[in-house]
């Protein structure tokens, strides 16, 4: 079994990047909120949470980049121009690849925006 499939036959590949974005959003906000709520009972400092979320962010960006790369391949590395609106299997694949590529780009930027506050948060409010 290959980790990276040869062909994209499922619509689910379209949602991969936004799902990673959503999970990353949840992990960022939940982990910081839980840490700040329980900080008196937790022995490690906020920098550990910061580092953890940075690692999660790098993983999320890598997953989204991979999704984008696969989408680019599915789109034929840009050799076909949109609109892909012929009622053929080939055009459906190209359309899906192009849409996935755009969604991956959006998700990539969004994950960076979501993670940016971590660089600036000084501490939990008392």
């Amino acid at each position, binding site marked *: 079994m290959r980790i990276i499939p040869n062909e994209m036959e499922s619509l689910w590949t379209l949602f991969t990047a936004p799902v990673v974005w959503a999970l990353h959003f949840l992990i960022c906000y939940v982990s910081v909120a839980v840490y700040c709520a329980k900080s008196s009972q937790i022995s490690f400092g906020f920098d550990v949470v910061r580092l953890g979320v940075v690692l999660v962010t790098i993983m999320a960006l890598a997953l989204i980049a991979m999704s984008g790369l696969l989408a680019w391949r599915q789109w034929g590395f840009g050799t076909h121009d949109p609109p892909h609106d012929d009622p053929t299997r080939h055009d459906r694949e190209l359309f899906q690849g192009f849409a996935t590529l755009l969604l991956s780009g959006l998700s990539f930027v969004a994950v960076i925006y979501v993670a940016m506050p971590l660089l600036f948060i000084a501490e939990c*409010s008392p």
Partner: protein
Amino acid sequence: MSGFSQVVRGQAVERPPYPRSPLRYGFIPILMFAHGCAGIQSTLEPTGAEARQIATLFWVMVIGGSVVWLAVIGTLLYAARWKGEPHSAQSAGRLILWGGAIFPAVVLMALLAYALWLMPSLRPQSGEPPSAPLRIEVTGEQFWWRVSYRSKNHEASIASANEIRLPLGQRVEFVLKSSDVIHSFWIPSLGGKMDMIPGRTNRLSLLATKVGIFRGPCAEYCGTSHTLMAFYAMVMDPAAFDIWLEAQSQPSEELASDGKLRFISNGCGSCHTVHGTEATGTLGPDLTHLGSRESLAAGILPNTEEAIRRFIADPDVIKPGSKMPAFRMLPEDDLQAIASYLKGLK
């Protein structure tokens, strides 16, 4: 539509001379609105360290937004008036990629980074209490402010209401609470706002940089008289502030007046405190130094005997929904004597 039809037909159309539009005087209302940007309750005329940061942030965002807006409108005009050959699909695609995706993403990232970078200084933490030299506890009530000063020079807290005084150039920690519904504490000239939430204690730290009188509204809808809930914040020279706070910690000077007797005999002391008397109620505002305050009834009336008399008689008219019952059944002599006594509490 004429611009659009020009593009469709691809030929120039002679424009008829326009009549002089009344819109050419549009700058007059704009100037009138701009006048509202100054004054004692304005974020755009900062007199505190945090407010200055907010004003800078505002202008950076306005300028950043204007640049983007001008670029969009400029491109729109260019597209509407362009009469040459159409762009190739490739160069149009490149324009969309750079102008529609990469440029906005980078500009937004820069503005977001700047706003986030400012955040710690907009909400400075003065450390675990009671490290700040002066702590002012403000509790939102429908529809007034309970104020309590705690200074390192005084063992007990000093009660006041509906007015806040701060020393110039000294960081003050506000401890913000609410006894009923959500209110929001905001002195636009000095800093950002902070909600007062029942069951929670929020903190806000402010540093005033200019002597003066500023106004703060309740910034969260809190009931019928929400718009009638405000206060004055007075920034004083530190030496004058210390003298004032010392005076506040003492009862007001006794004046020869039968208003005090009438105040007590009519039961005002069940809800209000006047230090040094039998009046020790805590339901309503502390009135110990009422006469020396800038305003009356939480920033809505001038502090005069007549206004005090009116408020005692008709609080339900002046401030609908307030918990103080109306005392319009009292004889005029009593109302006048009590008002005179309260105005004398300096």
